[in-house]
């Protein structure tokens, strides 16, 4: 599965964020995934357990927020929540809709400890 590849990309972004803040210890990572990103949250969590070994996030918790699929109708302008495989307007059932949310694969937040010296120089 590609969740391991996604995890390795995630850890590179986390390492970048930690370096930018002078941290050597990440405690929590928050990601947000929409159903249309094609990434399974449970598999991502298991892949994370494997991929984090030896990295700056070796002891970090991973929080995965599941985002809803929302579409905005081009016909009646309603914005409604839909299942991932039925992107029809919830009001008028048109398929001429634009996706407003549901395809995200986002790193939202990184929590870390920062040494006082580094905190002073990075801020």
């Amino acid at each position: 599965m590609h969740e391991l590849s996604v995890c390795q990309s995630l850890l590179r972004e986390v390492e970048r964020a930690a370096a930018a803040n002078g941290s050597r210890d990440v405690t929590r990572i928050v990601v947000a995934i929409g159903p249309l990103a094609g990434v399974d949250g449970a598999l991502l969590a298991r892949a994370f357990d494997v991929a984090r070994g030896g990295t700056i996030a070796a002891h970090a918790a991973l929080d995965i927020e599941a985002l809803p699929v929302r579409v905005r109708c081009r016909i009646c302008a309603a914005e409604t929540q839909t299942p991932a495989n039925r992107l029809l307007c919830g009001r008028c059932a048109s398929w001429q809709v634009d996706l407003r949310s549901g395809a995200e694969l986002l790193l939202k937040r990184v929590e870390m400890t920062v040494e006082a010296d580094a905190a002073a120089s990075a801020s």
Partner: protein
Amino acid sequence: MCDQCGCAATPDVVRIADHQGAVSMRPVSARSVEILTGILDANDRAAAHNRAHLGRHGILAVNLMSSPGSGKTSLLEQTIDAVDGRFRIAVIEGDLETENDARRIRAKGVPAVQITTGQTCHLDAQMVHDALHALNLDAIDVLLIENVGNLVCPASFDRGQHANVALLAVTEGDDKPAKYPTMFRGADLIMLSKIDLLDVLGDFSPAKAEAHVRALANPAEIMRTSARRPETLAPWIAWLETRLAHSRAAV
């Protein structure tokens, strides 16, 4: 209190061992940083680089995706024959193992680079970037990328293509778009392949397949093709020519 030696360290002090093994005590603070970047941003940047690089050469890059065995390589073989040199094709083949598909393409006199991904279930932008180095971009008009046969993973990674084509063989279920929405939502063109078998099988409904695609809010054109009936490929060749004209005009 430190839980290892019982010293008087408080929770906001951490023990940090330097490379010589010496331990220092330094105050630390917790920091929470809002990031909001895409997890695949690095891949997306590499894909944008590929797209720009191909664009400078006026090359149209098309990524083909489907289940294994739905006829991607046969489509490529017949496409090469049908185009008959009117534009120059190169192919990047993605499979877990073997050079078999690249050999089939090279037998048609067309340059082909095989990427064997090992256990990786998809092609990413870096793999395609490396493969581009093995091709003479000044001698190519259309680059066809045959992704690893898989309806799940390839849908999540941009490679720098200009268009995605998804094949759905009539030997599969007509509800595949509902089962694999990420793949079929992102397709710019959908081909119902092995269409010559439609009447033999009798249980695949092109109308239902189309309804499932539309339910993904995807207006993509749906073509009916068979690699065994070269005349069915004419709309596909015309589609490539139209897109190629756009790529050339954008240089």
